[in-house]
């Protein structure tokens, strides 16, 4: 009798909970944070991550063709085609750079595609050696002697004209070694670009279904990746050349120094950050980003602050009209202003956004409190 009474009470309690759940204002399938989180993950994967990585792969294929052409017919014209395609590939890569987490990060494939700074002395050592340089040789090299940055070392120079660069490729055995090295780099970058695309396709289900709030959640990983990218721009891409993080200016330590592309790289990185935050990737009706997620939490003010700050960074980057390595010397105040704006953005994303989404901004599990 007693047990039967208890069972009835328990059943009533469950009934009340289920009823309340059914009546709750946000119980429809189109609301709630999980709904937005799931939408954000699908959106970023299908409308951003996959397209930008496909774009990078296409640029890499074109780069491979351009390098093959240059290798078979080394002229000023084919060198310029190769240079132009290297720029397109590098800028496409800058859009992908942020997305380095989960199995992608574990595979360290990003390092094989573009690790910077490179070891120029080591590269020249390989060129002057009697080693047979080909794709396999390059595949076995350390990340600071291969990838896009290493290819830039061969294709561009701030002191030599294109004609002089071409001469280097034609200078006997050493010239052939240079050409072989560039060809090897190109084929390996293509291999890694294909590998990266395949890795993302394999990761799709896990990524899109990783809706939990905890450490393994995909939103958490995205947030951490965005934080890492902002910090990298501030500390490494701006801080080191400007001398903010290492006392004295070091203009040659900018990324893509030889091609003069460093500022364009940063601008592309900012585009990725902005698009990731807003989720405005494609003309679909469902373009959920962090902004919608924060709006759902009632944090419109924070959304505005972050958007304004991203815009500030973009404007400050646009205001620098000369290559970054020159700007750190002749316009240090403008570079410092951009650095400070990036640090402010870092605080907004890492601290305020992190606090709002209740996300554990770490890469490890927890074991209690």
């Amino acid at each position, binding site marked *: 009798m007693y047990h039967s009474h208890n069972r009835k009470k328990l059943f009533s309690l469950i009934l009340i*909970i*289920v009823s*309340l*759940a*059914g009546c*709750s*204002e*946000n*119980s429809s399938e189109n*609301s*709630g*944070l*999980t*709904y937005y989180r799931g939408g954000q993950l699908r959106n970023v994967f299908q409308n951003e991550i996959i397209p930008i990585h496909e774009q990078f792969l296409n640029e890499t294929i074109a780069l491979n063709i351009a390098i093959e052409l240059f290798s078979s017919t080394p002229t000023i014209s084919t060198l310029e085609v190769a240079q132009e395609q290297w720029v397109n590939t590098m800028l496409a890569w800058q859009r992908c750079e942020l997305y380095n987490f989960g199995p992608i990060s574990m595979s360290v494939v990003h390092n094989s595609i573009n690790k910077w700074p490179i070891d120029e002395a080591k590269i020249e050592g390989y060129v002057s050696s009697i080693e047979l340089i080909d794709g396999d040789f390059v595949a076995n090299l350390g990340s600071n002697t291969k990838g896009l940055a290493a290819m830039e070392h061969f294709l561009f120079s701030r002191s030599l004209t294109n004609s002089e660069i071409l001469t280097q490729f034609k200078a006997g055995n050493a010239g052939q070694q240079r050409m072989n090295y560039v060809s090897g780099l190109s084929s390996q970058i293509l291999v890694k670009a294909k590998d990266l695309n395949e890795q993302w396709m394999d990761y799709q289900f896990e990524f899109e279904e990783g*809706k939990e*709030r*905890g*450490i393994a959640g995909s939103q958490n990983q995205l947030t*951490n990746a965005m934080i890492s990218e902002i*910090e990298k721009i*501030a*500390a490494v891409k701006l*801080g080191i050349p400007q001398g*903010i*993080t*290492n*006392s*004295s200016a070091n203009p040659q330590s900018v990324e893509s120094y030889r091609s003069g592309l460093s500022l364009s790289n940063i601008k592309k990185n900012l585009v990725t950050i902005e698009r990731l935050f807003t989720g405005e990737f494609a003309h679909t009706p469902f373009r959920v980003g962090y902004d919608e997620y924060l709006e759902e*939490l009632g*944090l419109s003010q*924070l959304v505005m602050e972050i958007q304004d700050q991203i815009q500030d960074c973009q404007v400050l980057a646009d205001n620098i009209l000369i290559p970054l390595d020159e700007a750190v010397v002749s316009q240090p105040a403008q570079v410092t202003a951009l650095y400070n704006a990036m*640090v402010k953005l*870092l*605080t*907004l994303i*890492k*601290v*305020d956004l*992190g*606090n*709002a*989404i*209740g996300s*554990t*901004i*770490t*890469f*490890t*599990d*927890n*074991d*209690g*409190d």
Partner: protein
Amino acid sequence: MFKQLDKPTSILPLVVFRAVFGILLFISQTRFIAKGWVKEFFLDPSYHFTYTGFSWINPLPEFWMYSLAVSTAILALFIAFGFLYRLSAICFFLGFLYLELIDKTWYLNHYYFVSLACLLLIFLPAGNYLSIDSAISSKSQATAKKWQVQCVKWLLVLVYFSAGLAKIKYDWLINAQPLTTWLYAKDDLPIIGPLFTLSWVAYLFSWFGMLYDLLVPFFLLNKKTRPIAYVAVIVFHLLTLLLFNIGMFPLIMIGSTLIFFNDEEWDKFFKRVKAKRLIEKNNPQGAVQPTSIAMRGFLIAFFTIQLVLPIRHYFYRGDVLWNEEGFRFAWHVMLVEKNGSCQFKVVNPRTSEMWMVFPSQYLTPIQEKQMSFQPDMIWQFANHLEYLYQQKGLEDIEVYADCSVAVNLQKSRKLINTQVDLTEIKSEFALHKALLL
């Protein structure tokens, strides 16, 4: 008072505690090793945030770190089965304490509770009955002094009550934070998930959580209310296990609170489940040796410290959730969602050279996260930077911290005065001078 506490009582509750607690510790330590935390916590970091007075405690070489972790797991089993009990309890306590003292990044309330409970276990005769030791020696002791059973209960009462007291805060009760944020993000749970989008649910959880912590130990002490209180313990902790990423803590509390049940209740339970009686009827009237002065002194000191530590923050300036002064060792459990970001400015005053340092260059992500909102760790890292720059030949450098912190959905603000050279502060206890309250 000790005359009363020296009276004999059934040892069964203590033996149940030993067995359950030991098995949970074994699971906890095995899980710790299996998750790769020995490497991640102790071997990977190049720098460790040591506790004041324990800077001499450093990680051992890799082989010995793993050996130590495995040893604690085995010793936990020895405790559970009462094998070489006292020696096992001493070795486990020292080994576990060593692991915990390496780096304050990994401070967790449940690790602290384990350390305290193990310290007590060293002095309790929990291995004298229903144990391998008693089977080998053929000497069984079915009774214990009252205090020997009670002291574990006192510790649990203090833990719960202090945790409840810590919840009497504006953010927790009036803003229902951080539970509003945390529960809202759990709206995908089956059946109950949609409830978490309703603001009153977070308030209900906040107020219930506070009242639960304050009252449940007393309901557990009372024989009449004990069964329902224990059901509440199970429901509460399972709910926290389901909702939050808090590992072993709920299971350890569910297991530990079994000590509140006396031998008669265990008898009833075993009869109900038709199991053989676990314990023979004992004779609690036997004469016992009075507790030594040293043991009495230890108990008084132990519990005095445990009474003072959780409330010490009331005597400090500012909000403990913000400045974290008195936050640790005070049962501030699940009270705050906090995020921070720090940059350090290193200045050579002689040459006016300046370096901005992002701590991620030197710390693991979890170390950086924990440091970014805990002033004593920020101060420690500033001093570590001073040391690193001294190694480069730069004497008398200045280190300034620019740290922004957000607490429970409030807008981020500066934690530390950016004009204060942290290397000039000689002790973490003088750190409040640099805090922006």
